[in-house]
């Protein structure tokens, strides 16, 4: 049976509109591995869930970051009295790292509560220098592999193929910062074919002026301008830039606006694509063969942790050193900071209106088709919508 609901019916993406607090049952990046050295404790919040991360004797642990006693965050003042426990700094409730069980209380070693309460634990793993946590239902089974929550990996003979986190020799370097914007708005900005205008004067565009054209926008001119990934593995949607399905817009005569860099370059372009739970892949950007990658990790309904990364293939130590040098002197300052700060600015500008019911007062235009595709994709393939935490609404 076919869906006869009008394609324009907003109800098709009603679940997306409800997903204020994020999608549950996904792997989210929590920290870079270097932020959690041996013996370290850090607290993060993902999709309204406070999570404590601990690395001890080379092992990673992730626990609910709220003492069962008064609810304070253990990470507020990390206290580890033994290698296999964490103790609340306030009244000394102490928990096993392995299963979260309340194993002692400093002032009441025989307390009735011991052995009866526990902190829930979360699946956690470190991959390519990033600590990932699986956030969602405690009984979700089976837990999907991390690769299902990363961008698709195009075959290496694909003209657009670039470095991918799943490549054996992939190295990921990046930063993450807190942005006051709901995660959905940031995802939509991230691969919006119309948003190139916000980058018009970014230093990166001028730095690359001899190598790649600056586009003012990309306009879809065909039904298959974007490709949707709905099979096994990652679920996502890709702008097929560089094909005849999308026209790069370099000039607007009515406004006397022209691309600053001209258009006459032969280069392998960059496609943008977005995957659940909010992961951006930009192939061959800012350089050919590297990947620009972003995550928009929901913190609460109004803020997200914005991850901006560069992925490169580094088959040996020399390649790694070269990548690190270029990362520190070019990718991070010009792309991840200057260029992406224009995205932060756009996202925060949207938050102001979307938290006042902007979702129901949009006038979308032809360049927004892929965004609606994304909303419907999330509505159909989410593994559950995160409910607002108790007391939040």
């Amino acid at each position, binding site marked *: 049976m076919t869906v006869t609901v009008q394609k324009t*019916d907003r109800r098709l993406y009603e679940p997306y509109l409800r997903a204020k607090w994020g999608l549950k049952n996904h792997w989210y990046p929590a920290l870079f591995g270097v932020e959690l050295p041996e013996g370290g404790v850090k607290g993060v919040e993902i999709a309204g869930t406070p999570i404590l991360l601990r690395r001890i004797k080379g092992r990673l642990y992730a626990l609910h970051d709220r003492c069962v006693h008064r609810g304070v965050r253990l990470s507020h003042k990390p206290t580890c009295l033994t290698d296999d426990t964490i103790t609340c700094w306030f009244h000394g409730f102490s928990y096993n790292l392995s299963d979260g069980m309340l194993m002692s209380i400093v002032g009441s070693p025989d307390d009735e509560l011991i052995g*009866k309460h526990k902190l829930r634990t979360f699946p956690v793993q470190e991959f390519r220098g990033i600590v990932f946590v699986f956030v969602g239902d405690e009984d979700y089974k089976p837990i999907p592999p991390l690769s299902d929550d990363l961008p698709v990996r195009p075959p290496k003979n694909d003209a657009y193929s670039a470095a991918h986190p799943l490549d054996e020799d992939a190295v990921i370097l990046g930063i993450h910062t807190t942005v006051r914007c709901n995660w959905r708005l940031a995802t939509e900005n991230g691969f919006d074919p119309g948003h190139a205008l916000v980058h018009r004067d970014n230093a990166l565009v001028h730095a690359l002026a001899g190598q790649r054209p600056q586009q003012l926008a990309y306009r879809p001119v065909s039904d298959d301008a974007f490709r949707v990934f709905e099979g096994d593995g990652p679920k996502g949607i890709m702008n097929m830039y560089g094909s005849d399905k999308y026209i790069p817009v370099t000039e607007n005569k009515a406004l006397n606006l022209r691309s600053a860099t001209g258009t006459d370059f032969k280069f392998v372009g960059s496609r943008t694509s977005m995957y659940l739970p909010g992961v951006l892949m930009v192939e061959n950007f800012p350089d050919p063969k590297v990947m620009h990658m972003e995550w928009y990790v929901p913190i609460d309904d109004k803020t997200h942790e914005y991850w901006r990364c560069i992925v490169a293939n580094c088959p040996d130590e020399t390649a790694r050193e070269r990548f690190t040098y270029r990362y520190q002197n070019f990718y991070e300052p010009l792309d991840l900071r200057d260029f992406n700060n224009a995205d932060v600015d756009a996202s925060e500008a949207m938050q102001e209106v979307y938290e006042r019911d902007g979702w129901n007062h949009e006038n979308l235009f032809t360049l927004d088709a892929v965004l609606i595709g994304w909303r*419907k994709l999330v509505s159909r393939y989410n593994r559950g919508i995160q409910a607002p935490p108790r007391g939040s609404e």
Partner: protein
Amino acid sequence: MGQTAKLRFADDVTREIEVAPGTTLLKAALEAGVRLDHQCLSGTCGTCVCRLVCGAGTNLPGRSVCLLPGEVAEGYRLACSVVPTGDTEWQFDYPSTITDDSAIARHVAAVEGLRMVSDSVFELSMSRMDSAASFLAGQYVRITLPDGSARSISMSSAPQDLPDLRFLIRYLPGGVLSEHLKTRCRPGDILELEGPMGSFVLPSEAGPKIFIAGGTGLAPILSMLDHLRHAGTARSPMVLCFGVGREADCFYKQELELRQFWMPKLTLRLACDERSPTVADPDLRTGSVVSLIEPADIGPDSTAFVCGPPAMIAAASDRLNSLGLPAERLIVERFNPS
């Protein structure tokens, strides 16, 4: 015969339990399967407070309890710390169902909207005005009408949609509820609901499911589907067979299509007994809802949920049984027009 304790609750329920010498009242109650509200188990939090009506008890040695001397003088004790001596009687300030997540209670709700979704079906939207308990998807409430009479109606909305509640009601000419909805009910009306009730609910296991709904029997099934969807647990194959009498009675087609879009594991089949000469929807098969059931729908760990009029339930049960569905995996709810 050991010593006994009578536990009296605010809902006039009395439970009698045996208390072994030296055992606290709370421990004896929990061991006897009587649920009492409690938390710290150490005399600190005061959650398990109750009043000694008759008899005597002493506190466990070596603990301090949080009761004020005045409270003790009035007979208050903490169930976790008091050891009854001899036969006793205790009063609890809360109903016996306190620790039951979906205990039956009285609620008030305001009518938000009322519309006809087909020639013969009302959709009633309400907003519950108190925020206490939830319900299980598939349950119903008893709705009290201004004339004092009451009717049972199933929620078509999911628990996650609370405080919003939705119901589907078949229009029965002359029926008390039907006529009330048709002639008097207006947005803003306050109605009293008693519930939730009913055992037409989802089992805990996650296996494949087939839902068979006749007419407004769709309501509790829609509640189940939306519950599974909101909870992110709609991961096993699901089939929904929905049948109506006349083609013009068909309602909620787009609502169901949306569920099919949102739930890739859901297969949707529609039928009507009688075709209409004017509508002729190609998505509706002609025949009974039972004719929509296919042998491949029933696997070894499938569960079937059937809701509708008694004759349809009987036919669906026979059909499911003949396809090898064990009786314990058949969950039914009978709907009678009212």
